């Protein structure tokens, strides 16, 4: 996974509450069996409008997206993150994010920044004419006209993003603990094994 440290670039001012995973990645694109090339289907309905904010010469390929509350709500489809990454998005700024989406984003090196509505409103205005800078070390978002806005992030997610960690390797290093747990479970909760399968 590509590490995330700091990023300066154009931000797409999407706004809007409850941007759900069906808007980000409509169902028909879920028939793909690979991760790549999904950007073309991202926000398909919104991008049917030739004047859409994603494909304007200024915004095309922009690395930052600014949205309203509950971004990524709905399904668990990681395709939404693959599509965003394929579009070039590396950071999304919103008041809050749906839980499963947030888990998927970090696995794909996408930083999610939570800021209050008021800060979002400022950034949405600034995005029209200024680049936005996101600094994961300092945990701030700023632009020429917007004073640094601090954000909180789960320390583990921050570490994974900063270092570009693959957590399966991390977990396989814990194999002894898993083995021990598994053995104990077989003893104390034998009923939790599959009994029969017809």
């Amino acid at each position: 996974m590509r590490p995330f440290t700091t990023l300066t670039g154009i931000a797409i001012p999407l706004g809007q509450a409850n941007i759900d995973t069906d808007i980000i990645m409509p169902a028909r694109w879920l028939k793909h069996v690979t991760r790549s090339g999904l950007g073309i289907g991202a926000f398909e309905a919104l991008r049917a409008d030739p004047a859409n904010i994603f494909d304007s010469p200024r915004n095309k390929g922009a690395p930052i997206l600014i949205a309203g509350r509950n971004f990524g709500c709905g399904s668990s489809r990681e395709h939404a993150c693959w599509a965003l990454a394929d579009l070039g998005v590396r950071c999304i700024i919103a008041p809050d994010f749906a839980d499963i989406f947030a888990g998927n984003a970090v696995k794909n090196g996408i930083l999610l920044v939570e800021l209050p509505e008021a800060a979002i409103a400022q950034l949405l205005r600034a995005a029209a004419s200024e680049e936005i800078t996101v600094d994961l070390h300092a945990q701030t978002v700023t632009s020429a006209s917007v004073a640094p806005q601090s954000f909180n992030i789960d320390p583990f997610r921050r570490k994974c993003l900063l270092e570009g960690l693959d957590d399966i390797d991390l977990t396989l290093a814990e194999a002894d603990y898993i083995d021990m747990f598994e053995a104990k479970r077989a003893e104390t909760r034998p009923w939790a094994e599959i009994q029969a399968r017809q």
Partner: protein
Amino acid sequence: MMAAPRTLYEKIWDDHVIRSRDDGIDLIWIDRHLVHEVSSPQAFESLRMAGRNVRRGDLTLAIADHNVPTENRHLPIADVHSAKQVALLEQNAAEFGIGHLGMTHPDQGIVHVVGPERGFTLPGLTLVCGDSHTATHGALGALAFGIGTSEIEHVLATQSLWLRRSKTLRVELTGTLAPGVSAKDIALALIGLIGANGGTGHVIEFVGPAVARLSVEARMTLCNMAIEAGARSGLIAPDDVTIAYVASRPEAPTGESWHKAVAYWRSLASDPGCHYDRSVAIDVGSLAPIVSWGVSPEQVIPIDGCIPDVDNLDDPSDAEAARRALDYMALRPDAPIEGLPIENVFIGSCTNSRIEDLRAAAQIAEGRKVAANVRQALVVPGSAAVRRQAEAEGLDRIFIEAGFSWREPGCSMCVGLNPDKVPPGERCASTSNRNFIGRQGPGARTHLLSPAMAAAAAVTGRLVDVRRMVN
């Protein structure tokens, strides 16, 4: 010293911690893993590329549901991409040693319907699936939640996940449901009350006398919709109703093992005096049937209510969202929702496709006819087992005689991945869980409601108050 009182969630969590890290993240053992054809191909592909094995194929069950057609199942799947996903699931399951119920298996169905009915899902277990409606299984007292594809791969390889404990939201349900009002209405009312992100970061535990009176099927409807309130899991403590439901399921424990399990399950209920981060209460006796009017499951009103006047919403971003929703749904603010004509009806999905749902719909359909303006009215059982049961009870005859289309099990019109879709610009009275833009097909206009309400819409051709049709 007495142990501190704990919630159901905390008890299940504590019993699954493999290892705790200083930063507050725990490695959690996963007891059961359901896999379907849409979210899994990339996980298997990554395992293959990294040369990793599946740790516990026996705890994993793969079922094709999203892409399967619901009629002409003897024919090959016409859509090449769907056919490929379904075939790939079978290949991956065989290659990695995972149990598999393919499209023609006699127990095939929607993962969240099949898991509980086989006894694959049991109280007190952790269960995951690459699907957000995994919350459903919490109805049995299992800690169940949806995961993404990277996490699927992680679980396949390690049978564990790194997780931070969620906050807890206690939802207390009191009162007695009026005739014609069901668990679906409770779920929609709750989401309307707390919002589509009201449960974000939380696990919802449903408690109270009204929960105790619900069947396991109804509890599944309730927990299924927890995700639509933003909560990753819904939970209900196992009680006599749960234990009676689980007993004699094909994969449930037997003999000595069963008694051990039951004793454990009975110890899981939240302790008196335990701490929840938040609480809300609903008197379900006061609920009318609920219908969604917009494009988020939080945009709901009682069937006897009016579509909101967007100019009077306090929050400007809500007003903006409401305007957009009204535009997409082609609705006028301030107008009554009752009487709105619909062209499509869908009774099915992991929310409402179990036997009780079909009984409730059949009760309304019996002796009536699907209205002339309704172009398609589908009844799609959640599993082959539900379908067999319904046929044994004669429900299929009732539906067919009324003019409904009686289908084979699958996700069907809940998601635009198989041939069952709502045509652009048309309305659908749907028992599914998401009214998102384009969810039931591009341009589709979804109204979420209960099975009885959907049947009432089918036979009248419009959204109506089913309370007038029940005796």
